[in-house]
C-alpha cells in the first residue's frame, strides 16, 4: 500500500511535536524514520496508526485515497498496524488470548481455529511461540513477534515499528530484519522508526530524517553516514573519548551472592568494584540485571553470599543502611519511583538534606535550589513541580539529588528516552562523580551506551551472569550475541 502524509502538524500545549511533515512511502518499501529521541518520530507514527489525531489541515492518503483515521481500530481496518516501543499487550494473559483479543466476531471465539491460524503464521516466519504460555514470561523480542503475526492476521498491509531493536538479542534482531525484508518483498509497506544509524543503514531502502518535529531530509541507499548524522543533529556530535577509570580501592565486594525472585535465580556471583570504576550491565529485560542492581542497593535481600561495602558487611541490610554508606539508587521510572510528583524542586532538595531543627528554613531551601538548578543546568524554577519538567531535566534533577560524599551510584536506564545532548551532559556529570571516587553500576538496553561508558561489562542471560569483560575489548555484536545466550563458554547454548 502506498502511504502518503501531507502537511502533518501536531502540537501539545505550545510545543510542536510535528511541523508540516510531508512523506511518501511506496508499497514494498522499507522506509526508515531516523531521528534522535524527542524528534517527533513516535508522534508521527501514532498519528498514522490512529492512536492520536493530527491537528486539522493534514492529510493521510492511502493508495491515492484521502483517509480519515480516528482510532487504531480504524487504522487496522484500512490495513495499518503499529508495534509500539513498549509492547502494548497484556502480560498476565496467555499468548493465544493476546493474539485473538481485538479480532471481531461472535460472542464465543473459536479457539481451535484461532490456534491453528496462530501456528501457521508463527511457522511461516519461524517464530517459536507457545500459544499457552503467559506473555509475562516472554522476552521483548518474542512479544514483538507475537504482535507482528497478530497484525498480519488482522490484515495489516502497512507495518510500523517504533524502535524495535532496543532490548532484543542479536539473533532476534537478525530474525526481525529477515522477516521485514520478506514482508517488503511480498509488497508490504514497512516503516521502521529508530535513532540507531546502523540499524537504519542495514535495513531500510530509504530514510527520512526528523529533527525537532520537522522533516529535514530524505535519502536512499547507499547512505553516507556523516550526512545522516548531520541531518539528525544539525551539527557535529562527539561522544568524546572513552575515559578509562583510574581505579582505586575496592568499594563494593560481592562474595558468592545468590539472588532469587519468582521468575529466576542467580547463583554465586563474585565481583569487586573499585572506586572510580563504571560497570555496565547488559541483558534482555528480565534477565536478572534488575534483580542484581537492586541487591547491590540493599533493596533486594540475597538468599546467599555476602555484600561488603568498603569492607563493611552489609549483607541483609535494607537500602537506608546502604545509603548511609554512600550508596544511591536511581530507578528507571523517574516519576513513579525517583521523584515525588506534586512537590517542587525546592521541596526535593530540602527532603534530600538532613533536617535541621523542627521548622523548615524556606529561604535556605530556596538558595539551595537556585544553586543546584544552576550547577546542573536544569530548565525549571525552584517552585516548578517535578512532573512538569522534561525527561532530561528530571534526570538532571535526580543527579542533583545525589548525596555527597558518594561511594556507589546504581542506575537503571539512566538515559532512556533522552535526547543526545542530555545523554552527554548526564554522563559528563556522572563521570565527574567517578573522578571524585564514586563507582557506578548501571543497566542499559543500549549496548552502545554500555560500551561507550563502562570500564567493565557484565552480561546477564536468564539468570546467568558472565565474568566481567573489558569494555574496550568488546564489540556491540559480541554483546548482542551474549544477551541472546550465544557464545557462553561452558554454559549451554540457547537463544530465545
Amino acid at each position, binding site marked *: 500500500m502506498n502511504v502518503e502524509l501531507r502537511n502533518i502538524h501536531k502540537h501539545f500545549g505550545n510545543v510542536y511535536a510535528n511541523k508540516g511533515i510531508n512523506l511518501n512511502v511506496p508499497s514494498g518499501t522499507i522506509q526508515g524514520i531516523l531521528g534522535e529521541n524527542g524528534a517527533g518520530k513516535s508522534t508521527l507514527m501514532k498519528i498514522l496508526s490512529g492512536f492520536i489525531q493530527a491537528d486539522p489541515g493534514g492529510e493521510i492518503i492511502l493508495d491515492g485515497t484521502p483517509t480519515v483515521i480516528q482510532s487504531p481500530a480504524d487504522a487496522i481496518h484500512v490495513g495499518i498496524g503499529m508495534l509500539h516501543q513498549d509492547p502494548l499487550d497484556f502480560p498476565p494473559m496467555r499468548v493465544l488470548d493476546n493474539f485473538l483479543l481485538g479480532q471481531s466476531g461472535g460472542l464465543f471465539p473459536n479457539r481451535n481455529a484461532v490456534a491453528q491460524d496462530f501456528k501457521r503464521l508463527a511457522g511461516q516466519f519461524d517464530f517459536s511461540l507457545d500459544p499457552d504460555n503467559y506473555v509475562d514470561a516472554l522476552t521483548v523480542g518474542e512479544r514483538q513477534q507475537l504482535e507482528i503475526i497478530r497484525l498480519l492476521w488482522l490484515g495489516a498491509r502497512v507495518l510500523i515499528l517504533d524502535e524495535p531493536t532496543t532490548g532484543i538479542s542479536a539473533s532476534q534482531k537478525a530474525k526481525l530484519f529477515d522477516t521485514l525484508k520478506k514482508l517488503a518483498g511480498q509488497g508490504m509497506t514497512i516503516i521502521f522508526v529508530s535513532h540507531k544509524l546502523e540499524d537504519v543503514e542495514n535495513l531500510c531502502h530509504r530514510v527520512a530524517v526528523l529533527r525537532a518535529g520537522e522533516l529535514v531530509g530524505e535519502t536512499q541507499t547507499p547512505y553516507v553516514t556523516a550526512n545522516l548524522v548531520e541531518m539528525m543533529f544539525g551539527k557535529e556530535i562527539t561522544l568524546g573519548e572513552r575515559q578509562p577509570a583510574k581505579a582505586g580501592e575496592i568499594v563494593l565486594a560481592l562474595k558468592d551472592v545468590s539472588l532469587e525472585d519468582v521468575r529466576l535465580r542467580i547463583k554465586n556471583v563474585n565481583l569487586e568494584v573499585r572506586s572510580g570504576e563504571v560497570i555496565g550491565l547488559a541483558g534482555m529485560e528480565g534477565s536478572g540485571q534488575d534483580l542484581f542492581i537492586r541487591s547491590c542497593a540493599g533493596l533486594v535481600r540475597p538468599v546467599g553470599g555476602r555484600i561488603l561495602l568498603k569492607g563493611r558487611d552489609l549483607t541483609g541490610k535494607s*537500602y*537506608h543502611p546502604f*545509603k548511609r554508606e554512600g550508596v544511591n*539508587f*536511581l*530507578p528507571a521510572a523517574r516519576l*513513579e*519511583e*525517583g*521523584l*515525588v*510528583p*506534586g*512537590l517542587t524542586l525546592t*521541596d*526535593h532538595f*530540602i*527532603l*534530600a538534606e538532613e*533536617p535541621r*531543627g*523542627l*521548622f*523548615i528554613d524556606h529561604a535556605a531551601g530556596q538558595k539551595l535550589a537556585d544553586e543546584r538548578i544552576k550547577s546542573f543546568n536544569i530548565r525549571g524554577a525552584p517552585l516548578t513541580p517535578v512532573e512538569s519538567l522534561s525527561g532530561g531535566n528530571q534526570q538532571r534533577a535526580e543527579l542533583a*539529588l545525589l*548525596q555527597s560524599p558518594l561511594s556507589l551510584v546504581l542506575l537503571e536506564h539512566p538515559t532512556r528516552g533522552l535526547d543526545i545532548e542530555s545523554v552527554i551532559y548526564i554522563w559528563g556529570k556522572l563521570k565527574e562523580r567517578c573522578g571524585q571516587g564514586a563507582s557506578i553500576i548501571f543497566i542499559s538496553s543500549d549496548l552502545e551506551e554500555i560500551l561507550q561508558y563502562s570500564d567493565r561489562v557484565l552480561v546477564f542471560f536468564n539468570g546467568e551472569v558472565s565474568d566481567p569483560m573489558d569494555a574496550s575489548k568488546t564489540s556491540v555484536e559480541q554483546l548482542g550475541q551474549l544477551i541472546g545466550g550465544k557464545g557462553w563458554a561452558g554454559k549451554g547454548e540457547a537463544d530465545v
Partner: protein
Amino acid sequence: MFKKQLISLLYQIGALLLAFGVVSLILLSVGASPWDAYRNMFTGSFGSMRKFAEVLVAFVPLLLVTAGLLATFSSGLWNIGVEGQVVLGAIATTWVYRFFLDSGLPPALIITLAILGGMVGGAIWAALAGVLKVFGGVNEIFGGLGLNFVATALTIYLIFGPWKRPGVASMSGTVPFPDEFSLPQLAALRISPWALGISLVGIVVIYFLLQGTYFGLRLKAVGKNFRAAYLLGIPTWQYSMYSFLVCGALAGAAGAMQVAAVYHRLIPSISSGYGYLGLMVAMLINYRAVWAVPVALFFAGLNIGSIQLPILMKLDSSLSGVLQGVLVLFVLLAAGVRQKFSKKA
C-alpha cells in the same frame, strides 16, 4: 491569581446551590416544605445561645477528628478507621476514670489523665490499622472499617458486661461520674471552654505541623510517592505509622471530650458518627487546614439543627447527613468540572 480564586469561589457557590437544590427536590418528593426544613434547621442550631452552645459541643469532636485526618490524608492514607479511634478514645477515657475515681487524687489530675488516656487509646487503635497496612498489606480502608465495627461491639459489650450499671444494664450507658470529674462547663450551657480550647489547639498544631516543618514535608512526600520518598532516604513506614498515631491521638481526644465534657459516661453511640463526618469535612475543605474551623462549624450546625426535625416536621434527622453528603459530592464534581474546563482552555 485573584481571578483564579474568584472562579474557584464561583464553582464552590455553584456546588452549594446545586446541593441545596437537590436536597430541596428530595424534600418536595416527601411532601415537605424545603423552606420550613432549612429554617427549622437554622433556628435549631443558631437560633439561641443555648442551641449555639450545642453546636459547639458537636463542633469540638468534629474539629479534632478533622485535624487528625489532615495528617493521614497528607501521608496518602484514607483513615476510615477514625470512627473506631474515637470510640476507643472514649473507652480508654472511661477506663482511666473508673480506675482513678476512688483514688483520692485531685479531679483536675484525673481529668488530665483521662484525656491523655483517651489519646493513647485512639492512637493504639490507629496503630492497629497502621500495622495491618504497613506490615500486612491490608488496605487501611478495609482494616479501618473492620476495626470500627469491632470498636462499636466492644463498647456495647462493656456497657452490658463488665461495666454495666449496678442492677440492670441498659442502652443509656455506664454509671455517670460525679460532676467534679468532668471538664468545667460554662454556666447553664453544655459547652466546656476547655474542650473548645483543646480542639482549637489541635487544629492550629496540625496547621503548623503540615505547613512549615520537616515532618510535614516528609509526610507529604510519603503520601505522594511512597517509593520515591523511600529512595530519597525518608523512613517511609515509620512516617506512615506516625501519621496514624497523630490522627489516632486526635480522634482519641475527640472520644475523650465526648466522655469528659459531654456525656460523663460511656454510651453505645459515643462517637456519634463524628469520625465519618470528619472525613467529609476534610474532603470538602480539600485537605486545607485553614478552612477546617468554619466548615466543621457549619456541619456541626446541620447536625444539631436536624435533631428537632422528627418532632417539628415528622422528618428523619438523617436529613443532615443527606445534605452534607450531597454537598461534598457536588463540591467534588465541581472540582472535576473546573479541572476539565481549565485544561481545555
